[in-house]
């Protein structure tokens, strides 16, 4: 216990300032009213869905929770069920074998809800494209609010995408 406490104190606080929102990431205009956004901004619950990624994007989504980006410090957390979620963070391309599961996950998420597509493959199909086995980008399967490009996008970009999704249009 002493070692753990000593290490925590020695490590100190690593958290950096969160990035600004970026209007260029919007796929569609903000649909939600200010009151809802305020509520989301206070405590946002995210359900992550891997709809067919190579797992590179997942590595960076994990990293958003580390001490540097400190997602939970902003009142945002990942939840275990879509029924508890306000926002879906989806990586792709959507494989045809995940098409039904993704639609069901979307349907199970209560309104009002937001969808953020993470990574080049989620935004436009990426290197995998559309084929006998993939549907390509996420918006081919469910409505998308914000897209975050990158292969994989950096944790800052992912955080920026999430914050943009819950910000009002400027």
């Amino acid at each position, binding site marked *: 216990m002493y070692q753990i406490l000593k290490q925590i104190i020695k490590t100190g606080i690593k958290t950096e300032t969160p990035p600004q929102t970026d209007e260029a990431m919007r796929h569609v205009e903000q649909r939600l009213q200010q009151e809802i956004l305020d509520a989301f901004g206070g405590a946002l619950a995210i359900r992550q869905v891997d709809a067919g990624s190579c*797992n590179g994007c997942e590595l960076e989504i994990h990293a958003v929770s580390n001490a540097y980006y400190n997602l939970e410090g902003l009142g945002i957390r990942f939840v275990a069920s879509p029924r508890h979620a306000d926002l879906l963070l989806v990586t792709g391309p959507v494989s045809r074998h995940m098409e*039904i599961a993704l639609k069901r996950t979307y349907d199970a998420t209560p309104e009002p809800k937001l969808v953020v597509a993470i990574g080049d493959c989620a935004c436009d199909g990426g290197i995998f494209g559309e084929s006998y086995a993939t549907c390509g980008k996420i918006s081919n399967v469910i409505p998308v609010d914000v897209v975050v490009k990158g292969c994989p996008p950096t944790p800052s970009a992912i955080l920026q995408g999430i914050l943009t999704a819950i910000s009002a249009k400027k």
Partner: protein
Amino acid sequence: MPIKHPNLKLSRLTDALPAWTGDISPDDLHEICRQVHDGGGRLVALWGSDARLQSGGFKLHLVLVNETGMVCLNVTLSAEQPMYPDISQIFPAANRMQRATYDLLGIYAQEGHDHRKWLRHGAWHSGSFPLRKDFDAAASRIPLPNPPPEGEGTTVPSPAETGDKDKFYEPDDYGFVRVEGQGVHEIPVGPVHSGIIEPGHFRFSIIGERVLRLEERLGYVHKGIEKRFESMSLQQGAKLAGRVSGDSTVAYAWAYAMAAESIAGVTPPKRALWLRALLLERERVANHLGDLGYLGNDVALSFGLSQFWILKEQVLRNNATVFGHRYLMDKIVPGGVTVNLDVEGKHIIERECDMLEQQVRLLRGIYDEHAGMQDRFIGTGRVEPKLAAQLGLCGLAGRASAQAWDARVQFACAPYDKLNVQMATYRNGDVAARVIVRFDELFESLRLQSEILAKLVNEEDTPLLLEKLPGNGFGIGMVEGWRGEVLVAIHTDAEGNLTRVHPHDPSWQNWPLLEHAVIDNIVPDFPLINKSFNLSYSGQDL
């Protein structure tokens, strides 16, 4: 030469590895496999190709290894009856690979007792095979039931009920083995899991909290990677290879480059090889740090997660500063590397290695001394060495169950032949053993990085650019990634285009062992056991 058989003529590949290839007829397959198996050899990969245009039939390819080298056997199959004898009785790991090969190419194992589909869920018709050259993607597509059901997600009318079998996509008709008896019940989990993790389905049969049986159903992230390769240039293929499993991008890119260089008969410049090894060890360090953090978190020591992920983030940031990408994607290309290392970069890595050495030692002390943590680790998710050997457990998990195999040691190709890698092995085969192997390998990777930096040739290389491969070529590359051996095989057509590329992930071998590891454990320990293996879904679903 690793295998001797009267009907087998082996020819040596111009490869960085001791590799041979030879053609056999299906009749000799059993005998040769048995011989390799009895001599302590293993099956590494199995795939098929459509060679009807060249030789009038299909081909089955399998890579076997033993201590002296690796052999790729090519089995010629007829176009009308493309079948071969089932080898899963000799190498159990072949079971899923054989089923996947049928789903994608329509060649099948005779007398096999398990003919359930594996990679095909119903996105395309059962009679059409994506990897055949005459595959018609549009005609074989099975649409979703339309309109999609509202609200209650689980009540899609079954196509069998509506009489539309094979007309609509049927996601759930997989023949799971049922465990029956008083008090047994099932927990279906996935494909969408509760954490940030790739999709797959797990069917637990349990009594109370105790797991009687786990059955995996994978293939959800099947993206048609192998078909995609066929339309790509050599350079595009390198990018795709680096995205078969994102966490092993360096290992895949290197294995792909090694296969291409083998076909072209060239050796990359020395400095490029040293840099490749540096990148591979950095990938290993980053992944081991992440896993050690999560293993702490899974036994409720979130301190471990935050500490190890601070260290991992520092490694990733240094990767971005020195090499321009946090996960080192697209830095290895056929013929060489696209990065260089200047004096400043060298200092950054040296300082990082010193810092990690000291910090990880301290954290390891805390993990070792933490009674609650060790109580959850020790004896959990055990794979006995005997079972590991029987089923072909490989890579990191294999080494934690006394399977002393590391491609950097057995087939030490440049620059590993000058590095004298110390293999980490342990006998217990439980979560604790897999944690120990990770710690040991992490320290070894730090040592290797220092040694690479010291030995890195300073001379300016003349870059070797591989534009195109020779025609009718075949090459294999195998690299010990952080999870285990990653293999990439490339076949070229008469013009030198990619006609078949097969990437093989060690997860193929290790997923079935996870089913064994959880038997008799409690359900709440499953996430911990699963994380201790940390297998790739994307890498095996392709």
